[in-house]
């Protein structure tokens, strides 16, 4: 299971805003597919999947402020289920 999370970038990044979901729960995702777009205090950032599988549930909604380090969703490998 791969967790897609808001990376803590730079010296003092606190929160990011979730701008867009490009994949829905249950969608097949492949390595490199952009799953979500976030906005930090400096830039907008595409968050790609680093593994292939099926997307789990969205843990945040568009426009939510998400603390750095928090998981947005998971990518499930075949046979895996969400915790």
């Amino acid at each position, binding site marked *: 299971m791969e967790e897609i*999370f808001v990376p*803590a*970038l*730079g*010296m003092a990044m606190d929160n990011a805003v979730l701008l867009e979901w490009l994949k829905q729960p249950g969608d097949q995702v492949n390595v490199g597919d952009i799953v979500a777009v976030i906005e930090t205090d400096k830039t907008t950032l595409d968050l790609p999947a680093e593994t292939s599988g099926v997307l789990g549930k969205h843990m945040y909604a568009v426009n939510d402020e998400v603390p750095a380090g928090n998981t947005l969703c998971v990518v499930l490998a075949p046979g895996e289920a969400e915790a």
Partner: protein
Amino acid sequence: MTIPDKKTSLGLLRQMMVIRDFEETADKLSLRGKVSGGMHNSSGQEAVAVGVLSALAPLDVIATTHRSHHHTLAKGFTSREIMAELFTRSTGISGGRGASMHLGDVTKGHFGGNGIVGAGVGIAMGAALGIQQKGDKKVSVGFIGDGGMNTGRTWEAVNMAVIWKLPLIVVVDNNQYAVETFVGRVTGGGDLAKRAEGFGMKAFNIDGMDVLEVRKYVSEARERALAGEGPSFINALTYRYYGHNVGEKGQYRTQEEIDTWKSTKDPIDHFTAVVIENGYADQAAIDEMRASVRAEIEDAVAFADASPEPDISTIYDDIDSGKLGVQL
């Protein structure tokens, strides 16, 4: 290049593996927000740190830079106390008050990392002056990056070390990029060793991906310093595998350039091959070493995670010399 005995060689290899695993682990934890204030990953630069520190005596002094985990691990501090410092915990090398950029312990000859470009050479020069004044049989190493080569303070310190014949060794941990600026684009004259030679010191451009080469040049520089012959300058060409700071989305290097350095010049791959060729280890022994390193770093993370934050009453500790009891 003469290879050291089996125990020493395997020690050099394991130390480089510890640094690589530590950095890649800490990088991921930093992205998760576990490392206060960010960090600078030294993956790729292991041979410089291990080559230099293995040529020094335990109480020789080092002063380093913003990118200092590798120097600090190679000086003999444990992955536990460094990881705990990254997590700003009381069990960290600096009591949890310094984080990634302020690793240090003057009682053991580590005069610290710092966030000022090029400052390590000035600090090390001061330590070298102290060593000379006290007549100690020690040397002082100032680590600096290529970005620090064009700051005025660096060369003021170098000049003083030359005229006073101080036991200083300047080591350029030259990863070729000052954040995103390529060293070749900003180096007047193009040759750092020649620049240093102009100040009247022995100076060398060497392969910073070869741990034995670094070790040899530093050993010789140390001998000269102890013999009263003054400072030396060693420009060790290396490469950092990750961004300047964790999470940096750099566009200033091509993926091809990064991949080429990793696949053809990697210091750990290179020295692993040397060790195997010399019959010091087989592949099974290398795998076992890697597994023991993995266990060590996992233990360091668990230790850091379980350690308490520093008590607020310690906030003024270690900021004046009276408290430090500095003994050069």
